[in-house]
């Protein structure tokens, strides 16, 4: 029982360890690049897009999609490692 609840604790902290970096990236691309640093980034161009504008209206959305699939892939791997996946 002890070994198992230690596993449970470990699983949860690894889970948090996956979520937190994902949320950091989530905030950086949207609230950061799309809003706070957009005026700075607008000095750089991506084709005809000023970069800050691109993040606010395109780039952040693409990053969000990648983040969810990355999270999903890491979590499914973690579930198998701890033998808690639904099979």
């Amino acid at each position, binding site marked *: 029982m002890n070994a198992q609840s230690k596993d449970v604790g470990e699983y949860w902290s690894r889970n948090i360890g996956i979520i937190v970096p994902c949320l950091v990236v989530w905030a950086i691309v*949207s609230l950061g690049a799309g809003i706070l640093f957009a005026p700075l980034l607008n000095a750089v161009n991506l084709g005809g897009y000023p970069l800050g504008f691109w993040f606010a209206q395109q780039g*952040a959305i693409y990053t969000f999609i990648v983040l969810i699939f990355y999270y999903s892939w890491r979590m499914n791997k973690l*579930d198998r490692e701890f033998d808690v996946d639904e099979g």
Partner: protein
Amino acid sequence: MDLQTLSLIAVGITFAIYIAIAILSRAGSTEEFYVAGGGIHPVANGMATAADWMSAASFISMAGLIAFLGYTGGAYLMGWTGGYVLMALLLAPYLRKFGKFTVPEFIGDRFYSTTARGVAVICLLMISLTYVIGQMRGVGIAFSNILNLPITLGLLVGMVIVAIYAVMGGMKGITYTQIAQYVIMIFAYTVPAIFIALQLTGNVFPQIGLGSTLAGQDTYLLVALDNIMQDLGFGTYTDRPGMGTYNMFLLTLSLMIGTAGLPHVIVRFFTVPKIADARKSAGYTLIFIALLYTVAPAVAAMAIYNMTTTIQTGPVGSPDGNLSFDEKPAWMERWEATGLLQFEDKNGDGRIQYYNDQNPEMVAQAEEFGWAGNELTRFDRDIMVLANPEIAQLPNWVAALVAAGGIAAALSTAAGLLLAISSSVSHDLLKGIFMPNISPKAELLAARVSMLVAIMIAGYLGLNPPGFAAQVVALAFGLAASSLFPALMMGIFSKRINKEGAIAGMLVGLITTMIYIFLYKGWFFIPGTAPLSEPDGWILGINPSGFGVIGAILNFATAYVVSGMTKPTPAEIQDLVENVRIPRAQA
């Protein structure tokens, strides 16, 4: 064939499809009615959720909203998509593991309290009812603007169609209908956008076209747009400080948290077979949403560029630089008839001037040109999407498709909201609180009856919209952000938060957000009762639309403080939290 006949045929065909699906996917049990039996494939669920999420406002109004806001319109794009990251990482898999039917049910069980469940039901009903009024209104407007039929008739037809498939099929019928609606909607949105991008930039993909040069020129589209907007006194498009960095930040974050807390979307992740599916399904949902949301900013910029350059044909200020009234394109005349566009020759020169007459510098300059005010006196934002096929000179069947798409967008969202409302009434209020011994068969009947009643209430309010219809969206997102999202997240991520903490937190979040919005929009939205004025009276400069995040912070803080002062969470609830956190107990 003329446009009206074609549109009627397109709408008629889509309605026939919805009814056929309804007949094929009747719900036989409460589980099928509430969560489609938990057997929806994650990709199919993603598509249905995307249709559920993208409302009449996303389809018809969002591009226009962005066109007028310019860069800061990104707040809506990021806010309404970024919420899915929060939902996927913080809520969906755990609530799927919990494996029940409604959002208030989780709150009631986790906080071991029917009071908590009741508060969650109140939040859910307030959010979903305010939201559904706009959808019913959207159905009526799509009918009247595109099909030239009375709003009342359009709304009644829409109500009957929703009633048929939602009452018969519950979540099962709604899900399969929404998949069809998604396909119609995305096709109707992207086809005109692709043609406009091709004409303007020579690029098939609107997302790339927006960052390309104008066809046959070296100038980038966005640079040309910036220049003409600047010359007409609106400020540049790509860094227009429409709402200020601070409020753009708050609004984006509030919309993100609010999106993640919308009960009618969260419940979609109860319909997939496994936890791994819930995680992936949120990703598929966002892909399907992004197909429209990354095209919308291109539609926005291209439509406002087309509109402005159609009117401003030559250099700003030159005597023959403006479109003369006699040469107005046919589509302008047609949309003038609907009242969405209005012109007035204020200086009597026979030409149209469109510029920012609220900008003192521009007004001074305009006087030198002999201009006497902005002559595009009504420029409804919905025109950006609705007139798109005609601006691009596409055949009439494309415009007919846009009509069907707009109605599909409104119906699919309305159905999802109506389901959230009726499940909450039959499952949370009736079975959960007032009649715990109700039989499954009677509960299914109750769910169907409450669905029917909800449709009638929504239809009535759509016909007689309270004066605040335009402002309720801010309220719905604000309430979802400040009440449900924090309660759900704390229920999963903290074992310390107890019954007292959660109830106090939800009430504080809900009440402060409502009061803050009422302070500026009037008590219960009654005109003339607002004690403070906008924007100079904003407390700490906070726009009421962006208050959701503040309400959420107050909710979190209250819950922590109150939980610390009251009895700790019982052991069996701590076990429940452990259980929700792990997909399957180890052998």
